[in-house]
């Protein structure tokens, strides 16, 4: 009698454990199985609400807004086109040149926008899921995302001496030797001899950055400048100097750039 009750208890316990396990399994299964198209749907919705106007229905950058113009302090007017996602070439990556950006890169852009290019910040407008979703939706525009894997981000470690006068001097020499002035001009005003006939991969006229006019599109911090030198801006005339310059030289160049932008070495008034 007593033993019978004991058995029934064990059976009961066992069955409970089993059932819960099954349920758990089922639940997990369903979750994983529904995810993808849901996410894509969400991404599409967000995309059509926020991105479509500029980046176009099928992500080819041919939105209704079209070309965006901006007159800089020096009086030159530059034109910006919304990014074309179909080719899958991205400028602002943390990954080596030719690579795809990591999701973090894209997230960063969505969060902070792109300075001086009217790509607004969506930090507050969107929830994290929506951002993730829209990223994955964007990935559907180009095959590259199936074929390739994003490479690993390039490590950035800022040496203490960046911005020091000596470093600025060295950077100046680098600036001269690497012919940066051919596009960016002798005083970094973006008016170099080659600046006139610069085209990007889409065949659109582009303008070298004028260091005196304001912040970098990627955001002005020594790290960002360094990344730009290292990864280059794919699709533009700005190559990667990862191979042609030692890391130290790149940092020197950073200091000189900061100098050009008037962020270091300025006399206190």
């Amino acid at each position, binding site marked *: 009698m007593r033993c019978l009750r004991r058995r029934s208890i064990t059976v009961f316990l066992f069955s409970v454990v089993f059932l819960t396990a099954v349920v758990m399994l089922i639940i997990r299964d369903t979750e994983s199985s529904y995810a993808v198209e849901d996410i894509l749907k969400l991404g599409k919705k967000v995309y059509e609400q*926020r991105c479509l*106007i500029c980046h176009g229905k099928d992500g080819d950058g041919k939105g*209704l807004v079209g070309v*965006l113009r901006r007159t800089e*302090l020096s009086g030159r007017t530059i034109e910006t086109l919304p990014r074309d996602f179909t080719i899958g070439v991205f400028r602002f990556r943390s990954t080596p040149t030719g690579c795809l950006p990591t999701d973090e890169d894209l997230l960063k852009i969505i969060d902070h926008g792109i300075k001086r290019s009217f790509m607004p910040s969506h930090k507050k407008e969107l929830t994290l899921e929506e951002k993730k979703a829209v990223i994955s939706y964007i990935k559907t525009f180009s095959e590259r995302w199936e074929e390739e894997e994003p490479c690993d981000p390039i490590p950035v470690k800022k040496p203490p001496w960046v911005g020091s006068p000596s470093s600025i001097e060295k950077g100046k020499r680098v600036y001269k030797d690497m012919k940066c002035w051919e596009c960016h001009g002798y005083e970094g005003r973006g008016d170099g001899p080659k600046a006139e006939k610069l085209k990007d991969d889409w065949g659109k006229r582009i303008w070298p950055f004028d260091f005196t006019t304001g912040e970098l599109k990627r955001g002005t911090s020594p790290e960002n400048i360094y990344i730009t030198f290292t990864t280059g801006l794919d699709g533009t005339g700005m190559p990667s100097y990862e191979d042609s310059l030692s890391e130290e030289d790149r940092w020197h160049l950073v200091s000189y750039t900061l100098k050009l932008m008037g962020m270091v070495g300025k006399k206190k008034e």
Partner: protein
Amino acid sequence: MYSRFYLSVLLISGLVLITFLVFATYRELNPEWKKYQLEYRDLLIKNAPNEAARKKARSIKIEHQQIYIKPLKKVDRCMNCHRGVDDPLMKDAKVPHKLHSGDYLKKHPVSKFGCTLCHYGQGRATNKKDAHGKGRDTHWDYPLIPFKYIQSSCAKCHDYLFLKDNGGEMVVEGERLFREKGCRGCHKLNGVGGDLGKPLDIIGSQPIAYFPMKYVVGERNTYNWLKQHFLDPRKIVPGSEMRVFLSEKEADLLTTYTLTLRAEEMPRQFRAIRYTTPVPKDGESLYKMYCVACHGNGKISAYDEILKRTIPAIMNPAFLKIADDKNLERIIKEGRKGTPMTSWKRTAAGLRDEEIRNIIKFITKDRPDERPEPFDYKRFVTDTKHGKELFNVRCALCHGKDGKGGKDHLGLNLRNPAVQKFVDPEFLAMTIRDGRKGTPMPAFGKTGVGLSDQDIADLVAYIRSFSDKGKK
């Protein structure tokens, strides 16, 4: 008592006194200019043609050479040192004795015009430093004018038509530039012009202290300030909103012209005005004079980093299509409060009605013929809440969440009371529906994003409701 002490004090101080009297007398008897006049006399004696002349040269007095121009109450003592300035014998002497270059003195005898009338500098001074007015410690506001700007002095008495072919081209060119760079879009001259910048009526004769000289390179005087400011306004006055992009040459021209804008009035007998320059009244020149500085050729609209806003393309066909003359005239006359666009009516910036009409005629010269299909806003019952939702997803990207536009936003400030006041819902609705071709403003109508007229009406209603909020 103590007599020896006091006597020795008396003796010593007496001697000191005498010494200093002697010193002072010596200093007074040998001023700087005397040296030059002696040199001049020697030169005269040296290259005197005949004995009589030599005798005459020997007998010339070494004394103050003062030119007093009564009608101007002007005193020039430059000839204390430059005594040979009107002496043909001094043709190939060297400065300061050299004869004045060119044949200006034939028409402008020194005895009548003096020197500082054209060259500036301190006429009363009798030593080089003060007379040339170089350096801050001379405390003189009008130092010697650099030769490249000297033509500005001609315009004191001569008119442009005369100057054009009598060696005053820089002034004339400068005046043309002044008209075509649209300086008067922001600066008043003779009471006409915008009021973003300072009036320019007497800018050329302002004292040095008037200009912020902090960032000026080289000698701190009006001439350098003007030129360097023309070349890079934001370097001389940080944060300046002046939109002017000039070459070195143009900067010189404009500086020369600006220096002719002076307070002092020349007395009649000095002025040689023969003709008056015709001021162009046609739309194009007026547009250049007042609008071009900001609106450029008016075809493209671009975000401007200097004014921190997008400058509307006022000659864009899509815009002209829905904006009729009445609209334009109202905008020009009332201006847009809170934007650089000032009110241009007679009582404000001082444009006459027919001038404004000319400008409008010029702006609208390539307005497309076909009229836009009317939207007829009245027929809708609008729902502001729905409009707000639409606004947040559609418009907020460019016009900002609050519709204020502003820095790094493409869209204009929809909350601007002027916009709220003068832009009627019909106009808004049509703009939203058809967009602005050639500007970032897309067409939200069926053709584009696919908003129904109802949606658009709701949007308009929401935008209109800003002003009510403003009222509350």
